[in-house]
């Protein structure tokens, strides 16, 4: 597997501290499925050394979109990229979501966790009933709301401070919409605490989480990614995930 080069088409801060980056790569645009992630070199040279994993947020013809927070040095460099700059990408990586048919699918995004759910929603909505729940600390942290609306799905919001939608955790909305025994599916992406909350509270639906924890290679060769598996041992979630059934891991 060789790393790929692709030109940045646009990059802008879309919410406080959150960037949306479009780049062009026909091959990747064709290959990327919901659940795939890309591993990006933050800059040339040996520092920062490791690639940064980011989920594919959306695909439009030959272009792909990444939406990311910039908590550290590597993503800060990605945030500085301008149109015409080149990305150095390894991917697609991970195991894509197996897309269901004729189901009710609840999507739950916390903060920037909304990002990978957009592509998933897009690919699910024709053959499933999709409801999306987005949460954030305050209204300004809710992202991709317009994009989800354009998909003509049911979209619910939750904020910790009640500034938009339900006041409280976004998981409340999911729990309220779970109807046991109806074959519902839940896909969630967000902080570990949110996933743990869902794992505890969602009964009677198959719930999956997008895990965004530390990785080394992202390609399965280093064993540096480790989610504790129920019953012992660890899941190398860059290979078996990053989307993992919540009842299979210890949270």
């Amino acid at each position: 597997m060789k790393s790929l080069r692709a030109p940045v088409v646009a990059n802008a801060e879309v919410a406080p501290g959150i960037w949306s980056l479009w780049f062009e790569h026909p091959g990747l645009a064709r290959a990327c499925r919901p659940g795939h992630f890309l591993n990006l070199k933050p800059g040339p040279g040996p520092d920062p050394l490791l690639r940064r994993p980011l989920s594919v947020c959306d695909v439009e013809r030959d272009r792909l979109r990444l939406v990311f927070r910039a908590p550290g040095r590597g993503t800060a460099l990605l945030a500085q990229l301008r149109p015409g700059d080149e990305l150095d990408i390894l991917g697609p990586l991970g195991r894509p979501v197996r897309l269901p048919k004729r189901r009710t699918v609840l999507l739950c995004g916390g903060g920037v966790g909304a990002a990978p759910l957009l592509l998933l929603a897009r690919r699910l909505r024709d053959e499933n009933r999709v409801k999306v729940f987005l949460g954030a600390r305050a209204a300004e942290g809710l992202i991709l709301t317009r994009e989800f609306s354009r998909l003509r799905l049911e979209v619910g919001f939750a904020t910790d401070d009640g500034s938009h939608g339900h006041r409280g955790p976004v998981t409340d909305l999911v729990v309220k919409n779970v109807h046991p025994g109806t074959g519902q599916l839940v896909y969630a992406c967000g902080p570990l605490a949110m996933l743990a909350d869902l794992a505890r509270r969602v009964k009677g639906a198959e719930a999956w989480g997008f895990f965004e924890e530390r990785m080394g290679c992202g390609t399965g060769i280093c064993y540096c990614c480790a989610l504790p598996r129920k019953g012992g041992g660890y899941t190398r979630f860059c290979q078996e995930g990053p989307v993992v059934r919540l009842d299979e891991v210890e949270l």
Partner: protein
Amino acid sequence: MKNHSVRLRGVEFANPVLAASGTWEFGLRFKAVSARLGGVVTKGITVEPRAGNPGPRIFEFPGGILNSVGLENPGLERFRDEVLPEVAALGTRVIVNVAGFEPGEFDRLVGELDREPVAGFELNLSCPNVGHGGAAFGQDPKLVEDITRRARARTDRPVVVKLTANFTDPVATARAAEAGGADAVTVINTLFGLALNANGRPFLGGRNGGMSGPALKPFALYCVDRVAAAVGIPVIGCGGIMDGRDALDFLSAGAALVQVGTASLVEPDAAARVWTGLRRLCRDLGAESWADIVGRTRRED
């Protein structure tokens, strides 16, 4: 250079670039890259399966990483029965990295795998010696010699001893490995390191980690230079090799082969690129055989 191959105890490696243990799984993930290398060293195998350390297992710092994988591996039996058949079909020289927590585990692993289609063994002496207060085997020359000798008795294939430089002069342990009958020494394994969270607690799930990557290179090169001058068996250089020039430096300092570790985490074809780069540099230097390059740092001319 017409012939790029290197031999260890009669086993021929097509070129001197190997994938380092723990950074290339079993060579199966990127088979085309494995096929272009002199060989691959497997993830460390222990007698019993090991789940490894809790996460996080990796920490990044300027120029390097710390890892605390904790030797996660399927154990001897599953490795032999489930992994090896696939590995054997790779068409690449496969050196099995074996690790133990008691001296007897090393020769047991070597003995049981000696019937299998593997090219040789690398003894990873960096694990704590459980019976002896936890210092690593590799820190005690007497233990190194003893473990090497016992492994030597169990196989006729190449036995490589991977040395640690943690608070230990690898010259002493390299001599011990040589005395014990090793065919080569790998210099060096990771260096101890600690990273903390903002709350002052260890960042890594395994508490301490092992340093690797470009930040390690000057130290690793220093060790190779010293060890190569002190022993008669080949040295396999390892530590921070990212490109052909790095590999050339290790050969100049006296290594007969090199291993590429951390670089493969960043670029899956890093080891193959190291080989391409090294070959080009040697061609530009007009080298006619490895002897023109290996050890030239200390050669009078």
